[in-house]
């Protein structure tokens, strides 16, 4: 009994295959760009459909087409499917094996068609061929493919597994009950069931392929979406990072500018193009462009920033005409040698400092441009200080000259005694060395004076003494008096020499400043000057005296001389009154010694302090006239002043001032 018509089934199968072919084509059109291997499936379905069509046409087309070519097409299609799976799984395609297998299969099929026709053998061959190809497909899909892709291929693998099962069933059936007859279309129900099964499996395969591609497509889209969103996140992060970097840069630039603008010196950076440019009037033969100028630079220059952006000569235009040539020359030299230069000069514009210092370093860039970087400092104060120092130096020289003059005065005084000092006089000039040499000369000269002038004095005195001792008896009263006068005067001469020497020694003495207890010094000087008897007739009062700054030995000499004068000139009064007092004013102390003695006429007050100047006769008061000269010299060496007030028989006040700062 024949319940199923195999040819009809095969025909339906052809239709189904074509439908599946269409579906695969649609799939291919959609995903071919994204998913590799889909084209093989188009080929697979096309060949399968062709094969089935040829089978349906058996009887109407030659047997080699209907039998051999049809089955070869089906196996070839299945092999293309395998190749598609391999491509999908990212494997190398084993086309050689497939081709060999196809050839062997076709040979066996031809053998059992033409040489020893056997439908049973052919059926087994077909089943084995399909089994081999489907087994390969199934194994690849379920086991061989990489794990990630294998997941997508599970459905396809299962379908191919089912194919294998059908093929195994066919083989088993043919081996157990071989087909009778040669008509394939009357092969029986089993073969018809196989056809239906295969047809169902093809539909399932198409579905599972569609699912497989679809899942892959979705997965790839997911990956892509992930990539896109990652890229998006990344670029957002990059943008944020760039913004941060720019903000930091901006901050740094602001800091840099702040730093630059708080520098005491102005900072500049200009670019001189390699090409000299159109501005032939520039002394450098180039125009320039301002790269950077600190505010301070403009401030020191005394012009607006725009000046430097428009003035073709820049700084050169600001330089004082007298100082400009040096600047231009140094600038040109620096550009030629590429070595740094500095220039000090005046600026001519109002409002700018009188003196500036420019320091600059040129650097050549790769393109030949020259960058000049530098600083501009206001050195007016320094210049002023230098001028001040020069002025002070001149003052110092004047002081030295003054001292030299004083020294010369004392020399002249000595010249009154002896007259061979001329040769040394010229050597005493302002220079210290000369002064020292002169001091040495003076010292040995003083020694000679002391030594050599004393000897004759000693002889005069001594021999007059002998005269009086040996011949005193034969001299009358007048003779005795004359001898006494001679002796007195020789003693006086000796004292003059002593005083003069100590006066000249003062000119050479250095001052060692220390804080002085003026009260103690004045008191001890007074007590040293006077005997207890003398003190008994002196009303001595010592006020509060502020401390002073000076040389202890020299200041003591001042007190000794002033107090000695007071004692001496008040000695003719019944009671001497001597008062020492002091007051402080304008940072200096003024010390005074007042007496009630002989006083003096104010019209001679200028002569009081000269060497050997005396306002009283020797008969009235002893003295050499050097004491007050010594006082004046010491006080003026200390930077103080000395003066006197008095009136004849009305007493006198001698005052001197000394600095108290640091005392």
């Amino acid at each position, binding site marked *: 009994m024949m319940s199923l018509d195999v040819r009809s089934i095969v025909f339906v199968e052809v239709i189904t295959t074509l439908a599946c072919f269409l579906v695969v084509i649609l799939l291919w059109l959609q995903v071919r760009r994204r998913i590799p291997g889909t084209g093989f499936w188009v080929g697979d379905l096309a060949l399968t459909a062709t094969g089935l069509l040829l089978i349906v046409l058996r009887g109407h087309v030659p047997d080699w087409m209907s039998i051999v070519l049809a089955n070869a097409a089906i196996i070839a299609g299945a092999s293309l499917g395998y190749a598609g799976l391999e491509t999908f799984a990212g494997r190398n395609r084993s086309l050689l094996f497939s081709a060999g297998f196809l050839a062997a299969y076709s040979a066996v099929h031809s053998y059992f068609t033409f040489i020893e026709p056997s439908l049973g053998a052919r059926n087994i061959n077909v089943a084995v061929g399909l089994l081999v190809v489907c087994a390969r497909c199934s194994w690849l899909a379920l086991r061989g493919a990489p794990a990630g892709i294998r997941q997508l291929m599970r459905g396809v693998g299962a379908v191919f597994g089912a194919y294998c099962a059908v093929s195994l069933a066919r083989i088993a059936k043919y081996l157990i009950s071989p087909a009778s007859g040669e008509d394939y279309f009357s092969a029986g129900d089993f073969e018809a069931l196989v056809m239906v099964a295969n047809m169902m499996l093809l539909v399932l395969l198409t579905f599972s392929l569609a699912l497989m591609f679809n899942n892959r497509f979705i997965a790839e889209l997911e990956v892509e979406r992930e990539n896109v969103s990652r890229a998006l996140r990344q670029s957002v992060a990059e943008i944020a990072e760039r913004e941060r970097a720019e903000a930091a840069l901006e901050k740094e630039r602001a800091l840099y500018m702040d730093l630059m603008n708080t520098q005491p010196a102005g900072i500049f950076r200009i670019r001189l193009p390699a090409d000299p440019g159109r501005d032939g009037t520039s002394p450098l033969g180039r125009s320039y462009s301002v790269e950077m100028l600190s505010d301070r630079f403009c401030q020191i220059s005394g012009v607006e920033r725009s000046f430097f952006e428009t003035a073709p000569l820049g700084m050169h235009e600001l330089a004082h005409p007298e100082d400009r040539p040096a600047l231009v020359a140094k600038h040109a030299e620096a550009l030629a040698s590429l070595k740094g230069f500095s220039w000090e000069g005046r600026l001519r514009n109002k409002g700018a400092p009188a003196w500036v210092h420019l320091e600059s370093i040129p650097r050549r860039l790769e393109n030949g441009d020259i960058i000049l970087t530098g600083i501009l400092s206001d050195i007016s104060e320094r210049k002023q200080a230098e001028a001040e120092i020069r002025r002070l130096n001149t003052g110092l020289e004047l002081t030295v000259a003054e001292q030299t003059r004083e020294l010369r005065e004392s020399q002249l005084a000595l010249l009154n005694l002896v007259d061979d000092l001329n040769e040394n006089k010229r050597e005493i000039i302002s220079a210290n060395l000369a002064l020292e040499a002169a001091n040495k000369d003076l010292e040995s000269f003083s020694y000679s004076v002391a030594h050599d002038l004393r000897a004759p004095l*000693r002889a005069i005195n001594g021999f007059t003494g002998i005269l009086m001792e040996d011949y005193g008896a034969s001299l009358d009263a007048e003779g005795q008096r004359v001898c006494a006068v001679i002796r007195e005067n020789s003693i006086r001469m000796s004292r003059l020499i002593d005083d003069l020497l100590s006066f000249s020694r003062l000119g050479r003495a250095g001052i060692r400043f220390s804080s002085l207890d003026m009260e103690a010094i004045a008191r001890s000087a007074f007590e040293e000057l006077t005997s207890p008897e003398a003190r008994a007739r002196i009303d001595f009062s010592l006020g509060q005296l502020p401390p002073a700054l000076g040389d202890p030995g020299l200041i003591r000499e001042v007190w000794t001389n002033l107090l000695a004068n007071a004692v001496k000139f008040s000695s003719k009064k019944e009671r001497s009154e001597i008062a020492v007092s002091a007051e402080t004013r304008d940072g200096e102390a003024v010390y005074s010694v007042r007496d009630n003695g002989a006083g003096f006429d104010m019209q001679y007050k200028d002569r009081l302090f000269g060497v050997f100047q005396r306002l009283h006769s020797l008969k009235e008061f002893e003295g050499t006239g050097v004491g007050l000269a010594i006082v004046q010299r010491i006080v003026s060496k200390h930077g103080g002043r000395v003066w006197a007030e008095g009136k004849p028989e009305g007493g006198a006040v001698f005052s001197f001032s000394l600095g108290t700062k640091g005392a």
Partner: protein
Amino acid sequence: MMMDTMGAVDILLVEDNPQDAELSIRALRKHKLANRLFHVEDGAEALEFLFCTGRYADRDVAHPPKVILLDLKLPKVDGLEVLRSIKLDDRTRFIPVVVVTSSREDPDIKAAYDLGANSYVVKPVGFDTFSNAMSDLGFYWLLVNQPIPSGGGQAGGVS
């Protein structure tokens, strides 16, 4: 005022200024201190006398003066040089040397003491003070001062 150069001498006066010498001798004589005084007028002569050479070759070096009054400003060999020679020689370095000069300004005071001067005296201008100073000197060095026992300070000793 000269005396036998061979005999013992108390005072050797080295003084080039004849007036100063005369005043000195007069002052000393007044107090009977000039009996054994010998006066030389320059440094060279002083050294010859002390070391018994030249004009004084026949003198006995074993009889040194009790004191030498030495002026510093001397012709030929100057006073400091004389002092140095005296103090460097073992035969003479124990003789007291009194430097007698005109001024306390003398820059040589320190040099004189450095070289071993025993005393330094400034000649006063006044006749009386001068006389007193000289006689004080004489008294002190001849009568008060105790010299090294004769022979003790002399390298050669007395045979």
